[in-house]
């Protein structure tokens, strides 16, 4: 059988001010009917650009070099007119974007947006399309499939919305769907549902797919074949099995071995006086609204890493904000070295402020783009320690050295740095204050896996050296496994389990912890299928109709 999609010598250039830069450097790609091809690589590898090029589309500022060839079902897309391309898009090639929340029009109901494609292209009538949407929602395991389409995008959860978008892509029964990181923005437990749904429908409808992701463990579950990309070049191509068991290139091996970094277990003989203590903390955003933090108690020992784990909406970031003084809790105490901290930032002393520092998830917006590194790192030195200009310069260089950046960065602006470098600057800025506690809010989530691992190692080295305490907020259990001494699992504003890492991660688990742990994708073929199978068995065995993705039910157990 001939190939459904055949891309040969694909080259794409970025054009700016009459200068061009090649970002895709001659990629060949074939896709057969019903086959799922995984494209994997770090940011900047060109995977999304290739995905869009399969639809004959290029982002503004880029252009496909005319010697490239994109043949879809015997039809050369490169020679197609705009109208012909538009006719193809949505009907025969569909696209699922990373952020469903940004891809849906918030002003229309889901089913209206589903039916728009087929009705507009004149393939189906509105009632036909509507009926099909309901059938497809059912196949995608959405709750209440007959009526869910009559909701607006903000009325369904993130995972449901993502599945609704998969349904929308399926509306015209396309031959190919391009999935662009469809689960990256989701929680692990939600990711499972979406993966399962994608796997089910692509198989049943025999749809071919390009699956783009940075997470090798995810793509192995879905793809028949995988292409590893880097800087617009192909690194390696092979079946999922080949790639997993016998990778040929070092880069692929690096990708496979991420998440193996682990902190050395320390001797437990250290003093155990808590440096920070939270007692009965309860908070809500406004008066008379439900509490987002419910009676939180925790103790943090000096020089340790405490990880707060939970999915979005669990209140973990709110807890951090309350501790740092950005949010007024309703009641409860925050004690620093046994002394009560005022709730509001303004009423804390300079020294209290200095001892608590924060590092953010997105280094892009955590650094003022109009300030040089010298100023960004120098300001805390000036502010807290009153250092003079020459002293500051010396100390800034020391700080850069501590985060393993060259001293020449001192005169750069943040936009001139890469994501990992920016995050290192954020770490250096926190260290400049000589803090006791650093709150790390999802510090590695926005980074590529290999870069994230470097940052984690750096944080660990700094802790060994400076005995600084980390409060690590994350949804990523792999990070937790790597770096945490103690773990606090949060769910809907409450702590469901807390304790040292060895205890929390070893069975018996709390039910919710087990759900979280089992949802982390593993580098194993058939991991998804086996997991789903075992969950179905357990659900059947329990027989009380409780579903695994019914998050709220776990809270009932803990109370």
């Amino acid at each position: 059988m001939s190939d459904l999609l055949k891309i040969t010598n694909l080259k794409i250039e970025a054009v700016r001010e009459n200068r061009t830069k090649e970002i895709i450097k001659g990629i060949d790609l074939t896709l057969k009917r019903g086959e799922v091809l995984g494209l994997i690589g770090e940011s900047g590898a060109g995977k999304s650009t290739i995905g869009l090029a399969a639809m004959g589309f290029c982002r503004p500022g880029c252009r496909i070099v005319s010697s490239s060839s994109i043949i879809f079902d015997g039809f050369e897309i490169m020679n197609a007119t705009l109208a012909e391309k538009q006719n193809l898009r949505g009907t025969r090639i569909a696209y699922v974007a990373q952020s469903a929340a940004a891809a849906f029009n918030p002003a229309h109901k889901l089913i209206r947006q589903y039916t728009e494609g087929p009705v507009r292209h004149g393939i189906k009538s509105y009632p036909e399309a509507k009926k099909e949407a309901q059938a497809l929602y059912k196949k995608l395991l959405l709750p209440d499939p007959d009526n869910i389409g009559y909701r607006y995008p903000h009325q369904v959860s993130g995972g449901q919305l993502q599945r609704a978008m998969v349904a929308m892509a399926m509306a015209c029964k396309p031959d190919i769907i391009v999935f662009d990181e469809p689960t990256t923005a989701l929680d692990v437990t939600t990711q499972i549902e979406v993966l399962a749904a994608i796997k089910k429908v692509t198989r049943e409808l025999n749809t071919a797919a390009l699956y783009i992701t940075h997470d090798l463990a995810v793509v192995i579950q879905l793809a028949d074949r995988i292409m590893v990309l880097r800087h617009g070049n192909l690194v390696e191509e092979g079946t999922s099995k080949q790639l997993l068991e016998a990778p040929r290139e070092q880069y692929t091996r690096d990708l496979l071995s991420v998440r193996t970094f682990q902190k050395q277990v320390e001797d437990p003989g250290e003093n155990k006086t808590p440096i920070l203590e939270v007692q009965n903390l309860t908070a809500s955003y406004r008066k008379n609204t439900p509490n987002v933090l419910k009676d939180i108690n925790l103790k943090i020992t000096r020089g340790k890493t405490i990880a707060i784990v939970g999915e979005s909406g669990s209140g973990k970031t709110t807890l951090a904000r309350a501790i740092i003084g950005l949010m007024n809790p309703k009641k409860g105490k925050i004690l620093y070295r046994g002394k009560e901290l005022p709730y509001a930032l303004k009423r804390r002393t300079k020294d209290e402020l200095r001892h608590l520092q924060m590092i953010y998830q997105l280094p892009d917006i955590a650094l003022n783009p109009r300030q040089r590194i010298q100023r960004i790192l120098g300001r805390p030195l000036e502010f807290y320690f009153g250092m003079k200009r020459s002293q500051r310069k010396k100390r800034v260089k020391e700080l850069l050295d501590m985060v393993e950046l060259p001293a020449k960065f001192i005169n750069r602006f943040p936009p001139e740095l890469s994501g990992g470098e920016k995050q290192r600057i954020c770490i250096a800025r926190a260290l400049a204050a000589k803090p006791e506690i650093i709150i790390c809010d999802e510090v590695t989530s926005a980074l590529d896996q290999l870069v994230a691992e470097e940052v984690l190692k750096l944080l660990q080295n700094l802790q060994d050296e400076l005995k600084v305490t980390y409060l690590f907020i994350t949804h990523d259990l792999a990070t937790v496994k790597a770096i945490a001494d103690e773990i606090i699992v949060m769910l809907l504003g409450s702590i469901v389990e807390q304790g040292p890492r060895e205890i929390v991660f070893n069975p018996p688990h709390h039910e919710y912890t087990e759900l979280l742990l089992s949802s982390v994708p593993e580098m194993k073929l058939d991991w998804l299928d086996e997991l789903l199978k075992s969950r179905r068995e357990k659900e059947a065995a329990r027989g009380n109709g409780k579903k695994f993705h019914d998050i709220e039910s776990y809270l009932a157990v803990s109370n």
Partner: protein
Amino acid sequence: MIKLFKRSPLSARIGMLVIAVNLFVCIAAPLIAPYGETEVIGEVWESVSAPNSILGTDHLGRDLFTRMVYGARNTVLLAIGITALAFFLGIFFAFLAAVLGGWVNQLLSRSVDILMAFPTLIFALVVLSVLGTSVPSLVFVLMIPAATRVYRLARALAMNINVLDYVEVARIRGEGIFWVISREILPNTLSPLAAEFGLRFCFVFLFISSLSFLGLGLQPPTADWGGMVRENAGAITYGIMIPLIPAAAIAQLTVGINLVVDWFLHESAGRVPEEI
């Protein structure tokens, strides 16, 4: 800055040239002008070909070129002053409202809403008829409406910046509100504000001219372009083109500034996709 200039299109460069020439004339007015501002040198409405003048004479026989040069000084400098004042006030209160939020924001924003509810011309006519036409009252009348528009824009910009993490970092560090405003927010709102400055200047400038045309602006014998159009308006009926000369002067500066502003807005907004 030099890099930015090198990237500028031809239209923006023409605009910059126009602005530069105008500013030069403003500053060097007494050196350029051949006669005194109110010196009578000949007959009424002498044509361009008159031997002792370049552009002819006005309705009182004063040298039109001299009046034009001094008019540039009076009108342009007044407009720059008023716009700068409006920006200072507007940005200051806007940033305060955005950063403090709460009742400060409500009080300031609603006051601005009330001021904006008056049509600017009516507002100007009422205030000028009460206070009389003097330079301070003119400044007041022109500055207030301009400041409300600046306030609106600056508040919206500042609110966007205010929620970013680097502002939060500064707050957690314990920085005061003025540090946050001047070091974190202001530098990141400069390019849209600069574009707005150019645009606002045009409006103020045209508004001065129109008030002068109505006889409420700068009072004779002070030369100003709007007033000169009105004083010489009668000449049109005799087929004499003298009133068109100050009108053209108003037009050239407005167009010049807009050319630069367009480019500025384009730079700060990024590129628009050609095909989707």
